[in-house]
């Protein structure tokens, strides 16, 4: 059996195409280049599953698909573990992909394992780095992913079975317009089991989420030094998709709510990035954040204790730095 080409599952929910699928089309093109350097020709093939998705075929070509395979069925209006799995399994059995990439969305993480088990192949979850093995004697896909809460990275291979499957974390890669020539897509008909496993009683939007500092990946934390420019702090936090943190001093002064307080008497945090603005860094504060992966501290006082735990220390007015930072984002 010959397995070829890089297939990308295009996730569509209620006729809305998910960004991660377009990101994967671009990444598939990057892999295609790497294969090409090894003398292997691979096509980027979009597996477009949904209902009344005619208009999205063009989008796939625009964002980098060489070919598009379409399964258009009412049951696929919203992806389901039953129908989406069945459709993907049929595509795999029909087209024998060498690589299959799936966005690690709630949907992707639901169906990818089931599909992999169904076709008896390996699956690597939540991949953040994809690469074709640079070694001469191997053409395997190297799938690198974080484990142990992001403390450790592992590079995984799937040496004996096909497709080599990965679910890929959203927003890790960028999408890019290719405007590839539009060719007629291949339509696949799937006969689903008559009985639906699951009955969706209701579907509704999520209410606003309460903030949880302990789980935040990026924290922009404010201290007395930025009390006068909280508007800029909040705007920057929004821009960086960061959660707002604060020193006890600022909370005690009623500028910021207690739920935002970082430190011994507040929340202990360990984000990947902690950006401390105008915080001097009393022990009671640093004890709650010194396990952050990267600590950036901005303070006008060169002697501020916060600099002793900082990965990057910036001696300057935090307001000016934040204003300048906006230009770079």
């Amino acid at each position, binding site marked *: 059996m010959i397995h070829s080409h890089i297939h990308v599952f295009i996730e569509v929910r209620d006729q809305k195409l998910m960004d991660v699928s377009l990101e994967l089309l671009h990444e598939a093109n990057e892999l295609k280049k790497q294969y090409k350097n090894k003398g292997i020709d691979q096509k980027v093939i979009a597996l477009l599953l949904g209902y009344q998705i005619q208009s999205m075929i063009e989008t796939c070509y625009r964002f980098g698909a060489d070919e598009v395979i379409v399964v258009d069925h009412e049951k696929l209006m919203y992806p389901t573990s039953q129908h989406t799995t069945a459709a993907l399994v049929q595509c795999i059995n029909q087209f024998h992909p060498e690589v299959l990439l799936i966005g690690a969305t709630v949907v992707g993480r639901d169906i990818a*394992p089931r599909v992999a088990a169904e076709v008896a192949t390996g*699956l690597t979850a939540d991949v953040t780095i994809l690469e074709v093995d640079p070694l001469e004697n191997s053409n395997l896909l190297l799938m690198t992913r974080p484990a142990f*809460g992001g403390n450790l990275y592992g590079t995984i291979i799937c040496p004996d079975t096909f497709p080599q499957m990965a679910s890929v974390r959203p927003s890790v890669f960028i999408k890019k317009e290719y405007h590839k020539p539009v060719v007629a897509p291949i339509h696949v008909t799937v006969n689903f089991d008559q009985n639906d496993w699951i*009955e969706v009683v209701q579907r509704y939007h999520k209410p606003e989420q309460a903030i949880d500092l302990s789980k935040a990946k990026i924290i922009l934390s404010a201290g007395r030094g930025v009390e006068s420019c909280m508007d800029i702090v909040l705007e920057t936090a929004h821009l960086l998709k960061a959660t707002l943190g604060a020193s006890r001093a600022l909370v005690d002064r009623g500028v910021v709510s207690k739920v935002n307080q970082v430190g011994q008497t507040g929340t202990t945090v360990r984000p990947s*990035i902690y950006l401390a603005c105008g915080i001097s860094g009393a022990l009671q504060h640093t004890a709650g954040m010194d396990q952050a992966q*990267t600590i950036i501290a901005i303070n006008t006082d060169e002697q501020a204790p916060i600099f002793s735990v900082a990965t990057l220390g910036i*001696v300057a007015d935090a307001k000016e*730095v934040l204003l300048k930072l906006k230009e770079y984002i």
Partner: protein
Amino acid sequence: MNILVLVKQVPNTTEMKINKEHGTLMRQGVESIINPDDLASVEFALTIKDEQPDTHVRVISMGPPQAKSMLTDLYGLGVDDCVLISDPSFSGADTWATSNTLAAAISRYPFDLILAGRQAIDGDTAQVGPQVAQRLGIPQITYVKQIESVTSTHVTVSKHYEDYIELSRCKYPCLLTCLSEGTSPRLGRIEYIWRSLDQPITVLSNQQLQLDPSRIGLKGSYTKVKRTFVRPIETKGQMIVQDIELAAKTIADILKKAAS
């Protein structure tokens, strides 16, 4: 009603520290805990048992013999039975081989509902639940935040997507993977804890399960770990003094690097 809960003992990754000087992971002294999403599943099962006392809750775990201490703790919460799948030949398994093994053990017991955690905090794959469901040929609902109702034939749950929620109903048998967010697991009851050490834990090795050695453990895994490494840590103490332009640019670079 019979509920099976799949649980895993994991290192407490939030306690794990990185030696920033050597760029290594410090695992010594890190305690082993029950995986948080799995504990939420146990809580869901026991909540059902609170309301329907004839419910039988059986916990199944796969891991080394040390995992028995976790199962003893679960007896302290009030589960009815604990099973540990343990055999050196099962170790090193990827999610596929793990699911094969779990499915074989599960088939020995009656069940209406199987509950599992969404994902384990050590591997973070979220694959074992769905793959067990596939091996057993039963429906799955993943990302369950709440079990809304349980009848003699159906379970209704709310499943959380990124931006919306589905209220879904499914007939038994089925498998749910549960989220820990928002649950506050019980801590146990004194009378259960007092008895917990005397409760038997069934250990299943491959002598009982009789699985083909080529389908279990490291040998039975389709994926292999080629290498592992620790994320390089920025060296501590780079200082930028009064250069706003450079400061902003450096911060932006760090942010971009972190996003990739």
